[in-house]
């Protein structure tokens, strides 16, 4: 093994070893049930803020955001902004009252606020649902990253992350992981910032890619003729090669390849007039290939030329179009241009579309403003509705420190997120070949390698970012595992199955649950290799936004909320969002062949804009209709949620 391959491995081993040791060390102090579920409610503001930030910054934040900014430009800046902004709403409306309620899990709030054991069952199933949707991308990220850095098989990364964290959680519970997650936050900030400063000193400052883009609005980055590894149908829609409509491209197939389809890109609208008969020519080969070929075998060493052509729209406007290849299986290709000209990067948006608002991400369905707002609502309300984040607020000593913690979380998250778009921008400037292979989300790992053209220093820096990514998988998974094990041991076992259980029994059950859920997570992780990371996180956000966020918002501030009202809103909001988002995914994967109108599609892809108001309204209407069922002690509970501790009305639901 070469030194440049060994260095990232050493970094990953270092971060994994540190995680185990810190976990074991912190566990010495973890002995009671309260330690396991809520870290003894004694975590101070600085450590808790570090731990919440460490838990929240997942693979999607560490690698995904940079990739989205590289791929979509300005529009993707809304992602980190929305992730951070969600905490402002948490702070304004939820953090204080939630802590003052003083339970162990979020389903405790559901039952305790209304004295409704039935509602706990609804709430606990949402915790597990959201938890698993959020866990799978962490598992996949671990598998894929290790495969990318070390060339290990997919399952190795999953086994490493899964077993290390399951061990940590099972021996130490919430108290055991708090210190680990806090340390991992600082590792991640270090890993996202220090290598970036070195990369910037070599390729240019943040404003350079933006100035390049501004200078030539129709320009597209050029790529060298290196081998490009394409993904297969399982990764759809990330198996596409959309060739530039500005320049002629030559595509050389370096392996025997199967194409699902060749099609005109952008997709023609009704009334468009064009002639694509000369768009595609196989050079020196008898291969029958055209702009509408389907299920086609392309032999190794075939060279095709793709020439852009004019499209006249129904209103007389003339635009350019080219072709898109969709790959059925993994393949290797090269993209070049005739006459030794530099080739235009496939799949890359033109400079103007990348730099300016309402680019490819938000305009794809034709309603850019609507899409932007839906995205903002989904991210903001989703963040404020994630049970594994919310549960951490119980670990504060009191309501006041819960608010201060949230303030520090926002500072820490901002200090992290401000760097991620810089990675994406520099990726566009210096490594546009990542567009072609649809792997922009590896920019954070790959970009550092170019500081010395594949030498030791590049490997060192890439090792640091790889270790940061690894810390991200581990810290987020540990938070999810605590939240799910807590739901299982405390809510399902301790409250539903065996209410007579002693705290020691619940603690033992917590350990069993951690091992069991850890094992199930690893097994499910092995099955989702072909799923899209950002997509699965999107599901968790969509469900959280339309279920827990409305519950906590109204539950904390409106005395008149009833269990029936809250449950109806949560179920309908959460399930319709899920149905909408899964339908869109099935359409994308071509399992379902329904023609969705662009407006309907926008609303289904980002359901929060209608699902959150729907859930809130249902909660209000059904509660009004069942007003007789407002709990008799609603006044006492409301006072407990809002009274400063000094007044002496405070009482933890579980002390």
């Amino acid at each position, binding site marked *: 093994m070469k030194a440049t391959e060994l260095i990232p491995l050493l970094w990953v081993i270092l971060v994994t070893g540190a995680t185990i040791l810190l976990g074991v060390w912190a566990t010495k102090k973890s002995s009671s049930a309260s330690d396991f579920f809520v870290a003894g409610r004694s975590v101070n503001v600085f450590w808790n803020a570090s731990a919440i930030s460490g838990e929240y910054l997942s693979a999607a934040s560490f690698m995904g955001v940079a990739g989205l900014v590289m791929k979509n430009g*300005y529009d993707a800046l809304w992602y980190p902004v929305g992730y*951070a902004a969600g905490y402002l709403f948490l702070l*304004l409306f939820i953090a204080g009252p939630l802590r003052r309620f003083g339970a162990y899990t979020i389903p405790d709030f559901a039952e305790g606020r209304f004295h409704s054991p039935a509602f706990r069952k609804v709430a606990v199933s949402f915790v597990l649902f959201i938890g698993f949707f959020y866990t799978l991308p962490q598992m996949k990220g671990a598998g894929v990253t290790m495969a990318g850095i070390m060339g290990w098989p997919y399952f190795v990364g999953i086994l490493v992350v899964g077993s290390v964290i399951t061990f940590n959680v099972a021996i130490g519970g919430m108290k055991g992981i708090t210190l680990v997650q806090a340390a991992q936050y600082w590792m991640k900030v270090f890993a996202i910032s220090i290598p970036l400063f070195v990369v910037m000193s070599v390729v240019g400052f943040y404003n350079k890619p933006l100035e390049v883009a501004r200078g030539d609005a129709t320009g597209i980055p050029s790529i060298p003729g290196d081998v490009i590894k394409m993904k297969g149908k399982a990764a759809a829609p990330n198996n596409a090669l959309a060739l530039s409509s500005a320049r002629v491209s030559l595509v050389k197939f370096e392996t025997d390849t199967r194409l699902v389809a060749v099609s005109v890109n952008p997709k023609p609208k009704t009334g468009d007039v064009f002639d694509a008969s000369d768009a595609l020519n196989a050079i020196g080969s008898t291969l029958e290939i055209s702009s509408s070929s389907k299920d086609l075998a392309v032999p190794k060493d075939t060279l095709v030329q793709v020439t852009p052509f004019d499209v006249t729209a129904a209103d007389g406007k003339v635009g350019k179009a080219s072709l898109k290849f969709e790959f059925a299986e993994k393949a290797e290709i090269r993209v070049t241009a005739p006459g030794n000209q530099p080739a235009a990067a496939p799949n890359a948006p033109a400079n103007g579309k990348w730099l300016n608002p309402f680019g490819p991400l938000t305009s794809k369905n034709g309603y850019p403003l609507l899409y932007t707002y839906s995205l903002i609502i989904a991210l903001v309300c989703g963040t404020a509705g994630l049970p594994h984040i919310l549960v951490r607020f119980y670990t504060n000593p009191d309501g006041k420190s819960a608010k201060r913690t949230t303030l520090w979380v926002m500072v820490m998250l901002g200090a992290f997120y401000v760097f991620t778009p810089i990675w994406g921008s520099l990726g566009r400037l210096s490594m546009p070949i990542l567009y072609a292979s649809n792997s922009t989300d590896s920019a954070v790992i790959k970009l550092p390698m170019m500081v010395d053209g594949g030498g030791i220093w590049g490997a060192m820096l890439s090792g640091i970012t790889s270790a940061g990514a690894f810390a991200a998988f581990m810290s987020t998974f540990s938070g999810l595992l605590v939240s799910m094990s807590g739901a299982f041991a405390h809510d399902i076992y301790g409250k539903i199955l065996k209410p007579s259980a002693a705290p020691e029994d619940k603690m033992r059950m917590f350990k069993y649950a951690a091992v069991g859920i850890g094992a199930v997570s690893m097994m499910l992780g092995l099955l989702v290799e072909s799923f899209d990371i950002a997509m699965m996180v999107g599901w968790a956000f969509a469900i959280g936004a339309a279920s827990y966020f409305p519950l906590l918002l109204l539950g904390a501030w409106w005395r008149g909320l009833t269990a029936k009202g809250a449950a109806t809103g949560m179920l309908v909001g959460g399930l319709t969002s899920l149905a909408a988002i899964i339908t869109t995914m099935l359409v994308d994967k071509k399992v379902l062949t329904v023609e969705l109108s662009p407006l309907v599609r926008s609303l289904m892809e980002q359901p929060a804009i209608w699902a959150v108001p729907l859930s809130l309204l249902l909660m209000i209407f059904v509660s009004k209709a069942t007003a007789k069922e407002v709990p008799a002690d609603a006044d006492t509970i409301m006072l407990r949620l809002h009274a400063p501790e000094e007044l002496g009305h405070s009482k933890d639901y579980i002390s």
Partner: protein
Amino acid sequence: MDDAQKRELTNRLIKRQLNLSFRIAAIFVLILIGLPLVNLYLPDLAATNIGGFSATWLVLGVLFYPLTWVLSSWFVKGSEKLEADIVAEESK
């Protein structure tokens, strides 16, 4: 303390707390709604060149984070003050 007194105290707490929360939320929502509108209707303003950045990129990519810090520390200070006030009123 009976239920009526509890409700009176709760309402007082909630009213002041929400007053503060809604004021800050309103500013924040105004920015979240306003920025896409500026981008759509005043694209030249949004694209103003500031040291190589377009103005709108600078706002969303960089300045937005310190803004959330200012708003949240305003809230935390205000919230702690109003709770101290209520404690003082109650202990009279």
